[in-house]
């Protein structure tokens, strides 16, 4: 059951802009083999225009904690994260 969910996490300035640290999406709301870019479109639909921040040129996406391009496809059960360039150290 929970395997059909996609967990989406937002960090730092994106967490603030989207007004939440995370959301869940049932995979049936996504087309089969949806890409990260298609996932972003669905998130914008759900949350509203503040989620346009996810389309920023320097926004990074990790799927299951690995950095991926926006062409990567998402599967049910995946953990997807969006964040700005890192600034630790």
């Amino acid at each position: 059951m929970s395997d059909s969910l996609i967990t989406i996490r937002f960090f730092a300035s994106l967490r603030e802009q989207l007004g939440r640290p995370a959301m869940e999406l049932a995979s049936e709301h996504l087309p089969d083999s949806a890409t990260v870019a298609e996932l972003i479109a669905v998130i914008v639909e759900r949350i509203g225009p503040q989620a346009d921040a996810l389309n920023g040129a320097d926004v990074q996406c990790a799927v299951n904690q690995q950095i991926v391009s926006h062409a990567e496809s998402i599967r049910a059960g995946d953990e997807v994260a969006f964040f700005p360039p890192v600034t630790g150290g």
Partner: protein
Amino acid sequence: MLSVRVAEQDFSADVENSALLECTEGVGALANFIGVVRQSGQANPLKEMWLEHYPGMTEHTLQNLLERAAGRWPVLAARVHHRVGALQPGEQIVYVGVAAAHRQAAFDACSFIMDFLKTEAPFWKKEIFADGLEQWVAARDNDRKALGKWAK
């Protein structure tokens, strides 16, 4: 002997260095890097630094980084301790320690780990100033450029 710790608690370089020496024969050189919250003397001084991270991914990224360093140089042991949460100006943020037989490998591996930590490890800093202004730190172009020196 590669060890990664992400925590709110502070660290001691002496304790970390002792751990580097403990289970490893042949160590002649330790190189350390310690990052510190800069105190600024500006009109609007920094009150606090807030460090956010992506639990799980941070640890994996750092462990992977140590393994890459150990694959490239004759590293005998390496440790990273990175703090998260609220930090005051002057406080320590990160410790990177590398033990090797000779100094050049220790220096190079330590510098390599810091350069990639700065661009790959999912940490984000927010500055909170005395007048209440809060501001996410922008990624530095120089940090991307620094990676150039490790291209083989």
